[in-house]
């Protein structure tokens, strides 16, 4: 089975987000970048499926060269090779076209990615790629089992889950607890250095959306403290002052 895992390169979840160049660019100073947490789940399950089926696993990133440490980490975790589309991914549509273009050349059985990136939170790339390839797409997938061509998926729906069966090929957006994150071992780190990482130029895409500027939320006002001995006062304040109850 040929598996493609798409990873994002995003600021660590603890990062404070600020902007530079008159609020037109993310300020990357002092920010640690990581593989998107949801993508990490997709990668972990893909490594297990590769071991189970004896197939191949390619990792794909649409982004600039500064993401290569994260791509190498994915190789150290268990991907066989990697492709980086050398472009700043400015919107979901652009990213999806690049992924679909690569996927069409290689006919992957399974394309996995996180349910969303934790920077732009769109959660639409898997659906776009599925439609562009003319195959099914499901998200967020919490459990994934494959037997031959048949796939059994458990995915989260509002206040519960849905279990469905479908056939390969598919595009899936993943989330926990599909697999435990994998940490690269020393052997993986050493072999990752020699695994192929191909850099390709992007295909041209019509400009759909263009970011103009960024902003931070307005600062929060001071918290009104209520003594624990008068806790019930809170309910009155929520009713009369905040007018919520």
């Amino acid at each position, binding site marked *: 089975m040929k598996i493609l895992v798409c990873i994002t390169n995003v600021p660590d979840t603890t990062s404070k987000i600020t902007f530079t160049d008159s609020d037109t660019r993310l300020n990357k100073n002092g920010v640690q970048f990581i593989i998107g947490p949801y993508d990490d789940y997709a990668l972990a399950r893909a490594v297990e499926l590769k071991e189970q089926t004896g197939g191949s696993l390619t990792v794909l990133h649409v982004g600039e060269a500064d993401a290569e440490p994260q791509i190498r980490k994915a190789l150290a975790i268990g991907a066989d090779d990697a492709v980086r589309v050398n472009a700043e991914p400015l919107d979901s549509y652009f990213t999806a076209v690049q992924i679909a273009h690569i996927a069409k050349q290689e006919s992957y059985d399974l394309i996995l990615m996180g349910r969303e990136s*934790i920077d732009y939170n769109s959660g639409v790339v898997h*659906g776009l790629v599925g439609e562009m390839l003319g195959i099914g797409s499901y998200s967020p997938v919490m459990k994934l089992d494959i037997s031959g061509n048949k796939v059994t998926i458990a995915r989260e729906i509002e206040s519960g889950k849905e279990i469905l069966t479908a056939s390969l090929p598919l595009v899936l957006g993943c989330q926990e607890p599909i697999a435990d994150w994998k940490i690269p071992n020393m052997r993986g780190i050493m072999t990752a250095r020699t695994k192929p990482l191909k850099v390709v130029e992007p295909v041209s895409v019509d400009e759909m959306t263009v970011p103009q500027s960024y902003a931070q939320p307005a600062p929060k006002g001071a*918290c009104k403290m209520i003594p624990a001995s008068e806790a019930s006062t809170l309910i009155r304040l929520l009713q009369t002052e905040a007018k919520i109850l």
Partner: protein
Amino acid sequence: MSVLIYIELDNGSIKKTSLETVAYGAKVAAQTGGKAIVLAIGKADSGELEKAGDFGAEKVLHASDEKLAHENSMAYADLLVQAAETTQSKIIVLPKSGLGDAMAARAAAKLKAGIVSGVTALPETQGSFNVTRSIFTGKAFATVEIKSDIKILVVKKNAIELDESSVGTVKATVEIFTPSLRDTDFEATVVEVEKASGEVSLTEADIIVSGGRGMKGPENWQPLLDLANALGAATGCSKPVSDLDWRPHHEHIGQTGIKVAPNLYIACGISGAIQHLAGVNGSKCIVVINKDPEAPFFKAADYGIVGDVFEILPKLTEAVKAIK
């Protein structure tokens, strides 16, 4: 030029977030000089669907084929595209949800449309078409210009105020919509649906009571559940709590869990890690109860109580019962 608005149904009723989406779409239609037309998929009475008129919709297209009973983003996206073509809509509005995003994505690829998900305000339509969206799980906002001819907006909860004054008394016309369904959209088989019954959905909830490690164990959750019950609230938890299996995963609120935007969020024994704050920063009012006065959550709160949750929660429950 019409604005097409997709609404989600829950047991035949229009979800509150979808009513917000109707109000949002109707205002966009008013801004751009078009009609607001709604698409509803699934079983619902005409009387219920007519309510979309109260929020500014002129017409509701209703598709209720038996094959569409199960949420199916691929078939639903097909319908959305057919409805957009029938109504010649150039702007499509959906509510932000797993289904809304999935439909929007597949429709965007079919229509070659620019898609912006997580929209938090009405667009600016003078000259270029600009929308503001939430990014970095609410830690920032981006203003984005949509340049494509067809535009798809996926709107976050609370992007528009649904107060009494914005509600009208006009009934929308309900028309049966008969789309052509493709067999390829129905190749997957739904084997089982496990939906927790009686629970208030976190993404739809107006009030959420949420617990962290300060609750000290799953056996101690009853006081929190009692308060939630008295308030008619949904219950949530922090990531460590779901990681420890104290509470189910679908209650995990945060950057890598569910993002919520209730009117009232009550955090009990949650210190307020940046990842948790990112999941709740869309809340209108935040109450924090924690015995540690240095807990970072107090900086993000509107009201705070420093004290033992197990002493405070029963007092709050009694006070709520007293005003009901």
